[in-house]
C-alpha cells in the first residue's frame, strides 16, 4: 500500500475507487479507512462510485448495529414483531429478577398448600391472581426509571399497556398454573384463580387511568384479600372462585374492559400525566 505519513496516497485511493486494486491491497485500504477520517474524506472527494457508497453504507450499518439480544431473538421466534420485541425487552416486570421473584413467591405459596390445609390453599389462591396485577403495576409504576421519558413519547400508551399486560400474563400465568398443578391438594384452584385474575388485572388497568398504578394495584389487592378471607372464614376457600362468583368476575372484567376502552379513547393513559 502506498502510504505517505500513514495515509493512503491519491493514486491508491483512485485505484481503490475504481475497484482496480488486487484483493490484498483492497483489504489493506478497507482496514485503514474505518480508522482514518482524513482518508475517508479524500476518498469521498474523489467521487466514489455509487456501488462503493452502497457497500460502504452496508459496512457502516453492519459495524454500527449490534446483534439483537437473546431475549429479543426469542420473542421474535415466538412471533412478535421486531418493534414489539424491542419494547418488551425493556419492561422491568419481564426481566430475570422479576421471573425469579415470581417463581419464589409461587413456589412458596404452592408448597404451603402441600399438607392439604385450607390455610395453604387460601395462600395460593390469594397470591396467584395478584402476580399479574403486581406485574402490571410494576410495568406502569411511576418509580419505573423511564416513566417520565416514556410518557413524553408519542407511542400509543393504550397499546403499550396491553402489550405489557399480555407479556406479564404470558410470563406469570403458566408458572402459577404449573406450580398449582404440581401440588395435588390445590386441585382445581390451580386454574380457578384465572377468572378473578382477569377481573383484578382489568380493574387495575381501568383504575390506573384515574389514580396512580400503586394505588390501583393496592386497592385491587385489598379487595381480593377481603374475598379470600371471607371464603376462608367459611372454611371453604374454593367458594371464592366457585361458579357463582366466577360469573361476577366475568361481569366485572367486561365492565372494567369497557371502561378502560372508553377512558383510553378519551385521552387517559394508565400511569399517564396527572
Amino acid at each position, binding site marked *: 500500500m502506498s502510504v505517505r505519513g500513514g495515509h493512503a496516497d491519491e493514486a491508491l485511493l483512485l485505484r481503490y475507487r475504481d475497484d482496480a486494486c488486487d484483493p490484498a491491497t483492497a483489504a489493506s485500504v478497507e482496514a485503514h479507512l474505518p480508522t482514518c477520517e482524513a482518508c475517508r474524506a479524500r476518498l469521498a472527494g474523489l467521487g466514489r462510485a455509487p456501488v462503493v457508497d452502497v457497500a460502504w453504507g452496508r459496512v457502516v450499518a453492519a459495524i*454500527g448495529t*449490534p446483534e439483537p439480544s437473546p431475549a429479543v431473538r426469542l420473542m421474535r421466534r415466538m412471533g412478535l414483531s421486531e418493534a414489539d420485541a424491542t419494547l418488551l425487552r*425493556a419492561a422491568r416486570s419481564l426481566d430475570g429478577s422479576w421471573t425469579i421473584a415470581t417463581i419464589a413467591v409461587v413456589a412458596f405459596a404452592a408448597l404451603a398448600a402441600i399438607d392439604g390445609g385450607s390455610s395453604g390453599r387460601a395462600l395460593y389462591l390469594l397470591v396467584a391472581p395478584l402476580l399479574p396485577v403486581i406485574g402490571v403495576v410494576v410495568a406502569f409504576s411511576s418509580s419505573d*426509571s423511564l416513566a417520565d421519558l416514556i410518557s*413524553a*413519547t408519542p*407511542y*400509543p400508551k393504550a397499546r403499550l399497556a396491553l402489550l405489557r399486560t399480555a407479556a406479564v400474563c404470558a410470563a406469570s400465568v403458566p408458572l402459577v398454573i404449573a406450580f398449582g398443578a404440581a401440588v395435588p391438594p390445590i386441585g382445581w384452584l390451580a386454574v380457578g384463580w384465572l377468572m378473578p385474575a382477569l377481573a383484578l388485572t382489568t380493574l387495575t388497568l381501568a383504575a390506573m387511568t384515574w389514580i396512580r398504578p400503586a394505588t390501583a394495584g393496592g386497592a385491587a389487592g385489598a379487595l381480593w384479600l377481603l374475598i379470600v378471607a371471607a371464603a376462608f372464614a367459611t372454611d371453604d376457600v374454593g367458594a371464592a372462585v366457585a361458579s357463582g362468583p366466577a360469573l361476577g368476575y366475568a361481569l366485572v372484567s367486561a365492565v372494567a374492559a369497557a371502561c378502560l376502552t372508553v377512558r383510553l379513547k378519551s*385521552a387517559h393513559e394508565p400511569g399517564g400525566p396527572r
Partner: protein
Amino acid sequence: MTTAPIVEIDGVTKRFGATLALDAVTLTLGSGVTGLLGPNGAGKTTLIRVLSTAEAPGSGSIRVLGHEATGRLAERTRVRRLIGYLPQEVGFPRGMTAFSFLDYIAVLKEWDDTAARHAEVRRALGLVDLSDRASSRVRTLSGGQRRRLALAQAFIGDPPLLILDEPTTGLDPEQRAGLRGVLSERGAGGAVLLATHQTEDVAALCERVVVLADGRIRFDGTVADLVATAAGQVWLSEEEVPGARMSWRTGTGRVRSIGGTAGPGAEATEPSVEDAYLLMLGHRPEPLEEAA
C-alpha cells in the same frame, strides 16, 4: 433571534399539595437556545415536565407549533412527536447496551422501520460521540457517557423542540464544549430549552435566559441584558465591601464582592452571568431538595 413562536406557555400553574411549584408562568420560545436558570425548588423541573407532557398542569395552556400540549390525546400525541426530552434523571433498563437503549426509545418515537430506525440510532450515537460504545452495556459506561447517551435519545428524529433538564451534569469540560456545539446547531433550526445550574453553559451557549424563582419568572431577556443588571455592582477589593450580598476571596488574593457599595480601594469589575444571577436572587441559603 426573533422567529415565529415554537412554544407558547400561557398562565401555567401547578400545585403540589400546599406548594405552588408554578405560578401563572407565561413564556414564548422561538428558535435558539434558551437557558432556564433558578435555584433548587424554583420550579424548573416542574416547568420542564409540564412542557414535555410528562406532567399535566393545574391550569393554563401550552402550545407547541400550534398544537395543544394540554389538549386532547391526539393533540398531545402531535406535540410529543415534536419534542425531544431529557429528564433530570434517566434510569436505564438492566442489561441494555447503548444501542439497544436508543433503539427502544426510537420504537417509542414511532420509528417502525427497522433499517431506518437503526440508521437514526447510529446518527444519534454519533452526535454524542458514542459510536464506538454502541455495543457496550450501559452499566459499563462512565457517568458522563451515560448522560450523553440519555441526551442522545432526545436527538432521535431531530425534533424541533428540545427540552433538556441539566444536560451537562457529569460531563468533563471537553465533553461540555462538544455538547455546546451540538446544541447550538440544534438551536439554529429549532427551540432548545436548557434547564441548568451551570451559568457558564448559559453564558457560552444561550441567546436568551429565563430566571425562575418561587415558581415565577424573575427575568426574561438576553444574556447580555442579564449581565447588565449587575453592572457597577461587582467589586474587587482587599476586603469585603460594605453591604455585599455575597463575597469570596479569589485565587489572586483579592475579594470579589457582589452588591454593596464600594469601599476604600474597591474597583468595579466586569460582572459575569453568575454574578448577575446571584445578585438577582439575593443571598439566601437554598433548600436541600427540589420541591417538585
